[in-house]
């Protein structure tokens, strides 16, 4: 049987699993607004934020939640080749296999020919990796109103430019995801641990420890997961080496948080 520290460590493995989705008030509101936006006759929805703010998790959860009621297609890794992109969409959305090269004109013909009862939703993650040319084609596809795109991208200068050039004139919705606040971070950590029945370790996180974590990660979920994974790895090592007597076990040790931050590279020591 694994120790509580090993179990807690596994909770913070950096994976995109909708089951691990933690409902926080602010995040839930944003998620609900995204769900509502999909029902609206919008051509495109832009989801953006800094890396590690939960965009991928949002898209994954959205695809899972909408799968029962709507045709949803999630592409979490970008298809950079244009022909491959059209061929994948033709196959997944319109169930049309195409052997040779498929260009934009040919794909547009397929889109117009297939008269679907419901507008399929295509979720594109890491959209900043698509070329500007392909983004322009995606814009033109959304104009036909036969396809609805939800695009998730990092908020950088380049992405701002894309948003400006391609989406500004469209009827669209933008949703920004942000890092958590300290209070949200505490709930996030404790909920995540409690979901995995790690109640003992969840109770070890007092405000002081959470504030320290917040100071190091700035509320970024990915950094927090990484840090806490490292933290519980150190705890489990101490446990194996019978060194737990030297540290407090009723609350998270600040020293170990800092050690985890050094280990994960959040602190440059």
């Amino acid at each position, binding site marked *: 049987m694994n120790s509580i520290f090993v179990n807690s460590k596994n909770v913070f493995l950096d994976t995109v699993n909708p089951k691990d989705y933690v409902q926080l008030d602010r995040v839930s509101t944003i998620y609900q607004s995204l769900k509502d936006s999909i029902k609206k006759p919008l051509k495109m929805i832009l989801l953006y934020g800094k890396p590690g703010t939960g965009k991928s998790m949002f898209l994954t959860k959205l695809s899972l939640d909408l799968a029962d009621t709507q045709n949803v297609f999630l592409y979490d890794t970008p298809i950079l080749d244009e022909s491959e992109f059209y061929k994948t969409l033709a196959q997944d959305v319109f169930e049309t296999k195409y052997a040779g090269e498929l260009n934009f004109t040919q794909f547009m013909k397929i889109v117009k020919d297939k008269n679907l009862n419901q507008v399929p939703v295509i979720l594109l993650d890491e959209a900043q990796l698509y070329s500007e040319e392909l983004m322009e084609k995606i814009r033109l596809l959304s104009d036909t109103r036969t396809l609805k795109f939800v695009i998730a991208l990092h908020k950088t200068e380049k992405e701002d430019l894309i948003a400006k050039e391609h989406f500004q004139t469209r009827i669209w919705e933008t949703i920004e995801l942000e890092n958590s606040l300290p209070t949200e971070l505490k709930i996030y950590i404790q909920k995540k641990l409690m979901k995995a029945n790690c109640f003992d370790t969840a109770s070890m996180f007092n405000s002081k420890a959470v504030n320290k974590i917040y100071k190091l990660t700035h509320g970024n979920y990915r950094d927090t997961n990484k840090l806490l994974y490292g933290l519980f*790895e*150190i705890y489990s*090592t*101490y446990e*194996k*080496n019978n*060194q737990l007597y030297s540290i407090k076990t009723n609350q998270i040790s600040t*020293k170990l948080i*800092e*050690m985890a931050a*050094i*280990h994960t590279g959040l*602190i440059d*020591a």
Partner: protein
Amino acid sequence: MLNTRELEKRWLKYKIKTYIPHAIIFVSIIVIMTIISIFATSNTEKTPVIATKTEKHEKRKIVAIQSLQKEQNVSTQKEIVTAPVQTNIQQNTQVQTTTLTEDTKLTLSPSMNFMRRIQNEEQQPYYKVTSSVKKSTKKRKKVVQQATVEEEYMDIEQKSQVKKKTTNKAPITIVKKEPTSKPYKKQIITIERRDSQNDIKEIITRFKKNNNPALSLFVAKKYYELGNYEQAYNYALITNAINNDIEDSWLIFAKSLVKLNKRDMAIKTLKEYIKYSHSGNAKILLNDIQSGKFK
């Protein structure tokens, strides 16, 4: 498995690195505070420090000043006093020379009697300066009583060298009894060695060095006593410029003006000073000048 020892070392390095700026700030604050406090204390204690330094080197000069102040009165009594006292000294030195060995080292420490006396004088009314012969002898007794044991050693040693009677025994207790039992002896010795004009010059040079208003006031008083009213006026004016709260200085200033036939100016000055300080002595002097008692 993690190498926690290595990680702990890195953590320790990191902690030291993070504490360095705090330590620097803390140390620099302490240094700044210390410098500020040193400056603050040195500014407040500047005058007394200089005074004590100079007094260390010029202990004998201070004795001279004391004697100088009494010079007028002493000169009248000089012949009367010297005869019995000198015989006393001879008797005493005979006893003392037997007590002192050649190896006996005398340590001199600064005497603050001069400063104390000046302060005492400042509290006294102006008319005590022109005191009678009887009063001056009383004062002289006080001065002699205040003289330090070290001064006694010096005087006695000088005398003993003349007599050249030396033994190996050294009962110091006998010497210590001297200042109370034979007060007149020491005073005469110091008076004989000093010249009033030279002493005033010495005080003036000291005053030029440290700008101590007590010294300039003394010079002003001395000049006034010697009848050099112009110089008394000048030094009183200088003293007032340095510190305008010294009552004696204002009184000497006004009296010098009267003596220089500038009675109106003296009255005007005193009135201004009274308005400012409400000094009782200044009021008395003003009344005396106005009524013609003081000319």
